[in-house]
């Protein structure tokens, strides 16, 4: 196994340090991300997830204490220029559609690649690829004015703008918020595709643990500015008490499993999806799956 692509040790960060309004957002975070991984980052509001994630593409830098290495570079060293890093690590914020500024969709998506100085044909190809990945038909949407798009379409256009940079790592900070279930599913499918087909390292910050199913191999739980739990999805799902204690909601199916166990019926493994729960419970009821 190679070196971790991202490595944080005791990472700390204080907003407005030295003023009476100082807020310590990160109190000591340890994190390792290997190339090609897909991990989930969860935690209650105010846990420091956004702060952490903004360190991962160099927007924020470690100051006094804590260390962070990205791709072998010490991010605490002020001489390190984060800009090239941001082209390889794409960070999508919570309402990415707020970043749209060109009149036409194609122009906005092409912004990133143009900034990279790529030749015209390659820019066009990247825009086409990015639009296809997010489900916006190239022919139909490339010349559309941004203001004529629906909210969901705008979000997809914005994500395409980041994808067009072809980052090797993609970080999404609660990018599913505000999306309807279908939109959410489409986005998660996109991430799965990127992870499997392109080998993109994916870091998904979310408050919906259900989003991580079928995507994240590992989950890191952040609370109060610290890493409090880490493990596979099933391991973390199973720690309902710990999750609750840190102000996190427990996934529905895990709660079902927990309730059953409390009544003496322990399932063989923590169910991640409704289907898994069905498969576990149905035999015990003496019925076959699919029967309500």
């Amino acid at each position, binding site marked *: 196994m190679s070196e971790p692509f991202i490595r944080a040790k005791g990472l700390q960060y204080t907003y407005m340090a030295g003023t009476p309004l100082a807020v310590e957002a990160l109190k000591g975070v340890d994190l390792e991300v290997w190339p090609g991984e897909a991990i989930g980052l969860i935690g209650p509001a105010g846990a420091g997830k956004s702060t952490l994630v903004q360190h991962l593409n160099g927007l924020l830098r470690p100051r006094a204490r804590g260390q962070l290495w990205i791709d072998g570079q010490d991010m605490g060293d002020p001489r390190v220029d984060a800009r090239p890093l941001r082209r390889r690590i794409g960070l999508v914020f919570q309402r990415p559609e707020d970043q749209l*500024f060109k*009149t036409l969709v*194609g122009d906005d998506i092409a912004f990133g690649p143009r900034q990279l100085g790529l030749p015209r044909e390659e820019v066009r190809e990247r*825009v086409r690829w990015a639009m296809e990945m997010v489900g916006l038909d190239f022919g139909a949407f490339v010349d559309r004015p*941004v203001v004529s798009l629906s909210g969901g379409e705008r979000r997809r256009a914005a994500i395409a703008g980041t994808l067009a940079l072809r980052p090797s790592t993609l970080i999404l900070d609660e990018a599913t918020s505000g999306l309807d279930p279908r939109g959410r599913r489409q986005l998660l499918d996109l991430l799965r595709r990127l992870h499997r087909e392109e080998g993109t390292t994916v870091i998904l910050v979310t408050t919906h643990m259900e989003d991580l199913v079928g995507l994240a191999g590992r989950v890191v739980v952040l609370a109060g500015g610290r890493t409090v739990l880490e493990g596979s999805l099933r391991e973390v799902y199973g720690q309902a008490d710990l999750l609750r204690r840190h102000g996190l909601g427990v996934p529905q199916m895990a709660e079902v499993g927990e309730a059953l166990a409390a009544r003496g019926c322990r399932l063989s493994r923590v169910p991640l999806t409704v289907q898994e729960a069905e498969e576990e419970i149905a035999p015990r009821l003496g019925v076959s799956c699919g029967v309500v």
Partner: protein
Amino acid sequence: MNSLLTIRRIVVAGLLGAITILLGATRAGFIPVPTPLGDATIMHIPVIIGGILDGWLVGAILGLFFGIFSFIHATIPMFKDPLVVFLPRILIGITTALTYRGLRRSNEVVAVIVATVVGTLTNTVGVLGIGVLRRYLPLPAAVGFGVAAAIPETILAAIIVVAVVLAWRGVAARRRTADL
């Protein structure tokens, strides 16, 4: 309901006014033009946008905002003079709106650009002009500062105003298709 100040005008003036206040609060001034007029360099942009999108009244009100916040934050005698500060700024919105209305029939983009230039110059020439009349500045110095400030201010304003107005209206500048 006041027929002149419709809900739309109230709200747009409010929101663009908020941007004006925000720009005024970031006192470093966004363009590193080495003149003591750093304050005014982009606060005129929301005024111009308001004048173009919603008419002379919104423009005038935004100009008043511009005046108020520029007055509050000013630390140079000339900019702390109400006559220098308010009159030209209120006029920005009006001249912009009238110019735009006059030209839009021929060409939308040209109308926006010319209106922006007129608006920016109303600000620069107006402020410096009254500054000279009130004897804060000798004429040659005023002309010097004026030219030094007006050029970047106008170019920047034109670029931004055109980008905003066209993106908002869904109108592309030169081509109707993306530049790919």
